[in-house]
């Protein structure tokens, strides 16, 4: 059971009226001031720097709550149950759990999506793009100042078969506004030679994936580029810091296509540090199903995130039917 409502209160409970709406869902209440997002819930309150909050919120909204757990920080997060979503405080934080300060509510996906989208829209000021690397965008602070609807309403790319096929998701070009990113000016933009015999144009197909990625205007946003049944290749360009700690509900794989990312790995339910994974061009690594990870990319880099979209998997991992790591040797 849940109630979702978008309130527009004249007098927020916290701070001065800066022109931002307050949002409630269930017993959660979200407010923002010049520097912070404030989260109030039955057991207490929490706050996050507004830039970190909006960057995390952007991913959660754009990914449709993604696979498994999206930790905004060590306290606040969501768990995707594919149809419903848990919104929680302290669930993956042993101190909160031991002190009985953890709190969780489940909402239909469409309700929490509507509230999160409304919040993202209202709280993102003109000139701030939560999807961009910090060096590429303006500041999110201060009283309400316009909006950046164009940035926060971007649709995530989801190819049905492969990018560039007739009727599938299209290419990025200068002409449609996707210029090569400043960090990727040296990435070759040549296209493969394609010689299809008449009648086979929709099957004999190749495209420059790295060129396509060099033109991505977002960071930390895996989008589906090639599909083999439930096997989804989801390349993404990464710069600075992944704005969330991702706790997957299944095994996920990374293939580093260029440059370098350093991953911080923690236990998925306790946050206890487990490893650092340093990935350079050509490195391949699995992310076990029981961890959570945050990536750091010193220079904009290309990462191929590889997912298994079979939605019977979370239960099998939870029941212990599948080991949290993908191979034994």
């Amino acid at each position: 059971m849940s109630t979702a409502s978008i309130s527009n209160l004249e007098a927020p409970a916290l701070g001065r009226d800066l022109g931002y709406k307050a949002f409630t869902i269930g017993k959660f209440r979200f407010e923002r001031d010049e520097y912070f997002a404030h989260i109030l819930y039955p057991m207490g309150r929490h706050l996050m720097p507004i830039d970190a909050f909006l960057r995390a919120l952007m991913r959660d909204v754009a990914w449709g709550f993604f696979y498994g757990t999206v930790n905004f920080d060590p306290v606040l997060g969501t768990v995707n149950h594919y149809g419903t979503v848990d919104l929680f405080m302290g669930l993956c934080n042993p101190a909160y759990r031991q002190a009985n300060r953890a709190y969780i509510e489940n909402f239909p996906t469409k309700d929490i999506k509507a509230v999160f989208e409304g919040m993202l829209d209202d709280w993102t000021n003109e000139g701030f793009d939560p999807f961009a690397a910090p060096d590429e965008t303006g500041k999110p602070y201060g009283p309400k100042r316009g909006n950046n609807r164009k940035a926060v309403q971007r649709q995530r790319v989801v190819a049905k078969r492969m990018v560039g096929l007739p009727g599938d998701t299209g290419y990025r070009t200068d002409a449609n506004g996707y210029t090569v990113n400043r960090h990727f000016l040296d990435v070759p933009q040549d296209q493969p030679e394609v010689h299809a015999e008449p009648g086979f144009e929709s099957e004999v197909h190749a495209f420059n994936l790295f060129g396509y990625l060099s033109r991505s205007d977002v960071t930390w946003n895996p989008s589906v580029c090639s599909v083999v049944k439930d096997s989804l290749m989801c390349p993404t360009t990464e710069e600075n810091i992944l704005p969330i700690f991702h706790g997957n509900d299944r095994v996920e794989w990374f293939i580093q296509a260029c440059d370098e990312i350093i991953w911080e790995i923690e236990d998925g339910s306790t946050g206890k540090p487990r490893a650092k994974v340093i990935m350079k061009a050509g490195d391949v690594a699995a992310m076990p199903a029981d961890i959570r990870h945050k990536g750091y990319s010193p220079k904009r880099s290309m990462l191929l995130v590889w997912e298994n979209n079979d939605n019977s998997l979370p239960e099998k991992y939870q029941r212990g039917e599948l080991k949290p790591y993908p191979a034994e040797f």
Partner: protein
Amino acid sequence: MSEYRTVFGSLNHYEKGGVEVIEDNPKHYVFSNLFEVASKSKPYEKICVGKNLKYVIEAVRAEGNSPWFSASHDEAALCMDGEVEVHFVKPEQQLVPDTKEGSVKINGEPKGQKMGWVRVRRGHMALLPKGSAYQFRSPKPGVLLIQTIQGDHTVECWADICQTA
């Protein structure tokens, strides 16, 4: 000129990262480098570098002409080094039944209609469409990454390719 230099790997030059364990087993991360794998494997060996239940990612050293392959489902090939041609034929008869997954080696060149061919270089991704037969041709050594399903020719040799300690 860009002040940023994008670092790609190749058969001739790659640097490897690794797992630095705090409290874990490095084997859980199944960590390898696809260029290292391809530098040690035979032409067109399909070495599994990623596995998610039945789905696999194979690192393939492309050198010379490959056997002809076919699969009942789409596959994708991403060129990570070199320059590779992929030639496609529409077989007269279906070569691999719908119930069979993974790529299947075909004896000789399959009879059928020529569909065309592509030439891919680093960063280019080619569709290996379901039901087609295809052959890789690479005069010089190159590296392909194949997104597919585990099949009869997929080689799992994790202990040889992965960080174990």
